């Protein structure tokens, strides 16, 4: 995995011309699905991810319901055509683990006690994958939750750091993830409380700390973009009253 002749840096810049601590271009659109209660489409570099939120609504099957709070369900799903070699459709062990940690990344900020015996369903579809799909999915899901009007203590923003050629980098792309030395995705509140932290590869404790700091810096930048996207949608609704029921698909 690590033995490779790929050179990750050219004149101090990365394969796609980024600096070590630079994010890929991000595009966020709010309210892209007509049927969902809240939705968000996000592009982070080569990732294209769409998230939808349904609920709070009745829980099926019934026995899953909780008397004192809403349950949160999160389904991370990759389209079969989203990757180089066709992915077999349906959940696999990876997607089930990612669904679990992603749900646990969002649940700390959702005020579930407001909606006893109900469920908040979050569905995330990865349409195109280019390393960092879980972080893109969480960013989109957090915006979709806000768009659905689910009460939350704060936003959640997610970003990964990695290590290639012994250098800590922000937001690894596919080549850097596949042939790199480590990958460390995090999710956090704007206040800096960490709600997701995973890592694989090899890092010294000091590198680990620097990677966490770099990923947190990236997440802070993403938070600003999430906020901007939400403000943009709702300020348009104020400017054009009565338009909120009209679904514009461009």
């Amino acid at each position, binding site marked *: 995995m690590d033995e490779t002749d790929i050179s990750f840096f050219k004149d101090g810049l990365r394969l796609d011309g980024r600096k070590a601590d630079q994010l890929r271009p991000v595009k966020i659109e709010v309210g892209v699905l007509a049927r969902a209660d809240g939705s968000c489409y996000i592009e982070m570099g080569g990732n294209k991810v769409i998230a939808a939120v349904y609920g709070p609504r009745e829980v099926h099957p019934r026995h899953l319901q909780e008397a004192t709070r809403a349950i949160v369900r999160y389904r991370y799903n990759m389209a079969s055509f989203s990757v180089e070699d066709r992915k077999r459709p349906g959940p696999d*062990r990876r997607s*089930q683990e990612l669904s679990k940690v992603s749900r646990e990344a969002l649940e700390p900020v959702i005020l579930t006690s407001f909606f006893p015996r109900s469920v908040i369903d979050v569905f995330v579809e990865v349409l195109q994958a280019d390393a960092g799909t879980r972080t893109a999915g969480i960013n989109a899901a957090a915006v979709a939750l806000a768009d659905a009007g689910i009460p939350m203590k704060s936003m959640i923003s997610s970003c990964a750091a990695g290590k290639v050629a012994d250098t800590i980098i922000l937001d690894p792309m596919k080549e850097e993830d596949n042939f790199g030395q480590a990958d460390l995705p995090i999710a956090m509140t704007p206040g800096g*409380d960490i709600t997701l932290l995973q890592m694989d590869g090899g890092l010294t404790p000091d590198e680990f700390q620097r990677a966490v700091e770099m990923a947190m810096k990236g997440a802070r930048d993403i938070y600003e973009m999430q906020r901007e996207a939400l403000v943009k949608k709702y300020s348009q609704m104020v400017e054009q009253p009565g338009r909120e029921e009209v679904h514009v698909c461009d």
Partner: protein
Amino acid sequence: MSVTNVISEIKKDFIYNLLLKGERIDGRTFDQYREISIQRDVIRKAEGSALVKLGSSQVLVGVKMQPGEPFQDTPNKGVIITNAELVPLASPSFEPGPPNEVGIELARLVDRGVRESKAVDLEALCIIPGKQVWIIFIDVHILDDCGNILDAASLGAIAALMSTKVPAARYGLGEDYILPLRDIPIATTAIEFNDVLMFDPGVDEEAIANTRLTIISTMNGNICGSQKSGTGMLKPEQVHRIIDIACEKAKEIREKFLEA
């Protein structure tokens, strides 16, 4: 691990009040592990096995090996497949049926430790490039969940691998030999509750806390995997404190139980 375990409010209060005094229900310090015992080669039919006891938690790990086809994108590398069974005999909260997300996460974390530490030289497991390689099946059987089965399972996996004999003779591939290992990854888990960090949580401690961080460290003191789990939050300072203690604990466990 046992997210669905329910404990009474009275017990919760009791644990909480002790915690304010800086104590734990079983008298341990916050960074103290329960007693560990590792028995190797407990299953003769397996290529390698280990029974790990971590306090009253019991985990049995068996390793089986057989030749098979490599993955297309790694034609010269052996294959590791890790599975975990949270069988219903181990806890009132485990149910029969296909692995749920708790079991899947456990198996993938055990796998992450073995894989990312590069403990097994996968290239040495190639028999005929592109055609035949050794496949290692690591099967984790939880027998008694008294808390922190992840650390126990991870310890069991590496202990079982260390006692694994490659069954070459059975498949006409020469003489049996000991599976060579290059590292000994150790997983250490802490829970966070009211800004107190407790290592090696017991089952009741797991039930009160909703945030857990696992750090997997290698022989040279580096980190090869980590995972936050549960529906709580961690501050960056808490993460760094856990890492500091985790690496130290891992070293102690490794030296005491696996390098003898």
